[in-house]
Structure formats: C-alpha cells, structure tokens
C-alpha cells in the first residue's frame, strides 16, 4: 500500500486484493493450525474482512489502530507482511512480535498497529491513552479502536468511553458486532436492543453500519474521522458483521444454525465488492482471478518463509522483559547467557 495524500481514496481494486489476502491467509492459517504448525489459540477473521479493510481505507497510514485478539487481518491491513504474520503464528523470530506474542498479540510499530490484545476490553483504555497522547501533543491523528460485541459489558470498556468523552479525545470506537462473544449471542449477553446505544450513555455520537459492505464502512469512517480531525471528539460505530468460522479453531460453532451461516455467506464482503467493481467496469473476471492467485501465492510463500525461519535462541529469553535487559532484574547477563540448556536451568541459575 502506498502512502495516501489527503482527500485521496485508496484504489478499490487494491482493497479487494487486500481482502483476498486476508481471506487466503486465514484459510491457510486454519490448515496449518490443523497440521499443528501453529500452537495456542487461533481466532479467524473470515467473513469480517470488509470491516478493517474499510477502516484502513478511510484513514491515514500514521493514524493509530489497535484491536483485540482476532488481529491477523488488522496487521495485514496495516501492511505487515504476510511473511511476518505467518512467522508469528509459527512462533518464529522473524514474526511481527518475534514469536513472543503469537496469534493474539500481533504488533507492528512501524505501521502504527498497536496490537493484538487478548484480555477482552483491556485494550480499550490503552486506545484512549493513545488518543490522549494525540491531543496532548496537538497532533491531528485519530485512533481507531476495534473490539468485539463481547467487550461492551466489561468495566474497562465503560471506563474508557467515559474518559474519552470527558477529555474529548480523537478516537473511533469500532465495535465489530459478529453477533457472538465466543458462544454467547448478543441477545444473551447484552441488555440493550442495539449495541450502539451504549455510546449514548456517554454522550458519544454513535452510528450503525453494514460490515459486509466495504464501501459503506469506508465512507462512514471517513466521514467520522473528518469530523474528528476538525474538532477532537470520540465517536462510536457499531459494525454489523459475521464470522464464518467458530470463535477459535476448537469451536465447531454449534450454537448457531447452518441456515444463519448460509444467509451471511450469500452476503460475502469479497463477493459483494467484486460484483460492485465488475458492474462498474473496473474489474474483469480474469483480473479477479489473477488477484486471487497472487494472494494464494503470497500466503504459500509466507508458510515457506515461516517454516524455514529460525526461533529466538533461548539465550535471548531475558532480553525482552526489561528494556535494560537482564541486569534490571538483578541478574548478571553473563550468568543467564551461560546456561542455554533450557528455561528451567536458566531460571535456577539466575537466582
């Protein structure tokens, strides 16, 4: 993705290409997870692609974005390479968090992607802090804070919204409402008829948008961000979307019907943007096939890259706890470096 000029819109074919990359990346991640190349938890974004793609298409590259644990797409959308993303899933040193974060903790400082946060709603106050810093420094950036429908009943979410409204901070709270917090439907978790009404309680303007429609998401966020840049304030957007897969790889999603899933699949965000572009004469079938082929190739290459990448050496284990290294913990660096036999040995040695 190239840097955008003010007022310029990102090329829609390029954004469709990004959605394809996200889709193919997630499908391949799912396969590699089943092949036990990926450990821990793995939450897939398939079905929700138009949300983050529409969002990044509406903002500048130096605006801040931060999200929850379903974060692979947010990194890819911020130009983190598929190689670095796949390598992170494989736990490799070449990963976007050096293999120390894993699926739920993708970070990319250079591309202003601030995580990847796995405690539900705990990152919403962080996003408010980032927006606070923008205002403190008198910048015209905006923070986009993504979270799921499960986050809106956590205390951290409510405290964060209140602070953002109180201090009039430049932040868009983007609720990716995919109807389920793990296996609990919004109807069973939330007392409100619609999630956007949460914003009203904090005097924050809120709107609803169709998350399966790239253009609608992009245009709505562009409009909100434009208003925020003119005069700093928080905003709330409920984006109605759907995840095709279970909550995580271990979830068969038996809490919903096949019919419901099929209904949303028919409204697929990629198919929809493709149809719009084709209808307008901006994309041929051949061009689409080529984009898809490229996405698949990029992802396959990423798997190869991840496979052959090195792991972080065990001697480096203590280098990422304190900025000033092992010394900070009262350990002599030579001592912890000496024993590379395993973490247990190091742990004992450093005492």
């Amino acid at each position, binding site marked *: 993705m190239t840097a955008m000029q003010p007022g310029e819109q990102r090329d829609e074919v390029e954004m469709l290409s990004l959605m394809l990359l996200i889709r193919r990346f997630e499908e391949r991640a799912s396969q590699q997870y089943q092949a036990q190349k990926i450990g821990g938890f793995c939450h897939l974004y398939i079905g929700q692609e138009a949300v983050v793609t529409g969002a990044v298409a509406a903002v500048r590259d130096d605006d801040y974005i931060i999200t929850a644990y379903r974060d692979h797409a947010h990194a890819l959308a911020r130009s983190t390479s598929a190689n670095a993303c796949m390598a992170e899933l494989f736990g490799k040193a070449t990963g976007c968090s050096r*293999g*120390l974060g894993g699926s739920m903790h993708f970070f990319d400082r250079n591309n202003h992607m601030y995580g990847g946060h796995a405690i539900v709603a705990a990152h919403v*106050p*962080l996003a408010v*802090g980032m927006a606070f810093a923008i205002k403190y420094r008198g910048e015209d950036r905006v923070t986009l804070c993504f979270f799921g429908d499960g986050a809106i009943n956590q205390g951290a979410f409510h*405290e964060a919204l209140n602070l953002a409204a109180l201090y009039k901070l430049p932040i868009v709270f983007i609720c990716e409402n995919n109807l389920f917090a793990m296996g609990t439907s919004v109807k069973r978790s939330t007392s409100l008829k619609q999630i956007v009404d949460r914003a009203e309680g904090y005097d924050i303007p809120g709107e609803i948008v169709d998350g399966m429609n790239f253009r609608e998401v992009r245009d709505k966020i562009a409009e909100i961000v434009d208003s925020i840049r003119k005069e700093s304030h928080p905003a709330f957007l409920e984006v109605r979307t759907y995840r095709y897969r279970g909550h995580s790889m271990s979830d068969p999603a038996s809490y919903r019907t096949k019919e419901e899933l099929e209904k949303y699949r028919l409204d697929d965000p990629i198919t929809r943007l493709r149809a719009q572009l084709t209808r307008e004469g901006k994309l041929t079938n051949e061009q689409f096939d080529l984009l898809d082929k490229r996405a698949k190739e990029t992802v396959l290459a990423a798997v190869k890259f991840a496979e052959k990448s090195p792991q972080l050496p065990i001697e480096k284990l203590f280098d*990422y706890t304190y900025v000033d290294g092992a*010394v*900070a913990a009262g350990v002599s660096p030579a001592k912890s470096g000496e024993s590379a036999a395993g973490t247990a040995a190091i742990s004992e040695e450093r*005492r």
Partner: protein
Amino acid sequence: MREITYRQALNEALAEELERDPDVFLMGEEVAEYQGAYKVSHGLLQRFGPTRVIDTPISENGFAGLGVGAAMVGLRPIIEFMTFSFSLVAFDQVVNNAPNMFTMSGGQFNIAVTFRGPNGPAHQLGATHSHATENFYASVPGLKVCTPATPRDAKGLLKTAVRDDNPVLVLEAELLYSSKGMVEPPDEELLIPLGKADVKREGSDVSVICYAQTVPLALKVASQLEEEDISAEIVDLRSIKPLDEKAIFDSVAKTHRVVIVEQDHPFCGVGAEVCYRIQKNIFDALDAPIIRVSQEDVPMPYNERLEHAVLPNAEKLIAAVKQVCYA
C-alpha cells in the same frame, strides 16, 4: 542539605520531572484541583496547568490503562493511585498490560509509566484499605518495584522511576508522608538508582533487613537493642525489584544473623524471597535460622489493639532479634 518532609520530597521530585520533560504528565484522582488526596501534588496544577496535571474520575482501570496506552506512543505518564489498595481495581492494567507489552511485542513497545501512591497499612483503615502490595507486584516479571522510607530516598527513587524506560511502581509509605529528613537542595540533581539497598545503620551482631514503613521501626528497635549490647545493622532494601543481593549478602557475611521485617503478609511475602536467596548463596555464613517478622496472616482488623497485634511491631522485632542472637 536541608530538612523537608517525605511529602515535600515527592512533590519536588514530581515538579522537577514535569519541568524537565514535556512528555511527563501526572494523572490520578484528586491530583489537580484538590491538590492531592495526601497533598503530594500540592501546587502542581497551578504551576504546570491542566494539560500536565490531570484529574480523573474514580476509574482506576480506565486511567491506569490510559497511562499504559499513552506510554505505548512515547509519553512518560505518572499515574497516581490514591492508595495501592485501589490499584487492585486496575490489576489487569498493571499486571497484564504494562509489563507484558515489551515482551509480547518482541521488544517494540516499552512502557515508561510510573505508578505511584501510598501502599501498606496506615492506621485503622480496615482490610480493604490496608493492602501491602509489594509482594504481588514484585512477583510479576517486567515490573520494577521500589519502597522508599526516607524523604531523600523518596525524591531520588521517584525521579529515577520517571526516567526509567520500564513500568516502575513507587510504593510510598502513607504513615511517613509527614516524616522529616535531610535532602539535597533542589538545584542539586538527586537520582537514586533502583536496585540499590542502603545501610541505614551499621552494626555487627545481626542484620535487620527492612523497607518502607518497617525502616523507622527497625531503627527505633536498633537503639533499644544497643542498650542491651546487641549491635543491629539496618539494611533498607529501598527496591524490592530489582533486589540488591550484594548489599544483603555483604551484611549477612558480616553479622551471620538475619531478621527480615516486612510490611506484607507472611505467605509468599518479600521476606520469603530474600530468605531463599540468602540460604541459597551464603548458607555457610549463617549462624542461626533466619526469622521473618511480617503482618499476621489475617485480613486487617479495624480495632486498634488488634491492628497493632497484626502489624510487625517493636515487641515482635526485638523478640526475633534476640532469638537469632540466642540472647
């Protein structure tokens, strides 16, 4: 040098760091308009204005998280907890977000935040308001924890904490806010490194290892013991993490007898760690088993007499010293 209170020392540290670095700001409940619940931030709003000294609603999780987020993009927030008992509401931010970010991001995001405020039992505040949190927080990799006991240490450690690139907790001692001590004049830069203990009184018969509110207690007891011909060396840890092993071992090698007096609970308390490290490293230097004096293992009662019985106190400390000295 001049004599000032612990409270004034902290106030000077805050003012000097706010003055020095525009990325530093102070945020918390009642820090601005009210001038600080314990008046530690007195006058700072007037001097630095409302963009640098910021009142919050009662939302510890929210504003602690705000501090961590602001640090992710390069600011150096000082977050005040009215007491560390209230930091438990923000435990997730202090434990899950602040120290994990540097690791989880593969070293991309360091969190240069300072969390500060009074910690430990004060006087008849009951169980919810009397927590000594140093052992919880010191057990978390990625956090640094210091516990100043004198005005000079309070100023020097707080200033160092603000400049540290990691999350640092400055656990102040509520009962010591009005205590006085000699501190360098304001035009002399005072920085006390984290992880350096301080021998507050030299002695030869027993090492009394202490920190925070137990330091004045240990010093008082040392004077009493002197009358009974027991010479106690008072080692003030000043920092719980990093822990100054060398200072501890040097003292123990000299006295061969150890009492640890701590303000937290006995089970998995700070003293347990110190004790482990002593026996692991200089077992042969010991002439007697180490004894720990801590709070009793109960939630803090309100009743004054019972509270006194729960706290580490002079009677318990004297008895412990006599026991290790076989006196």
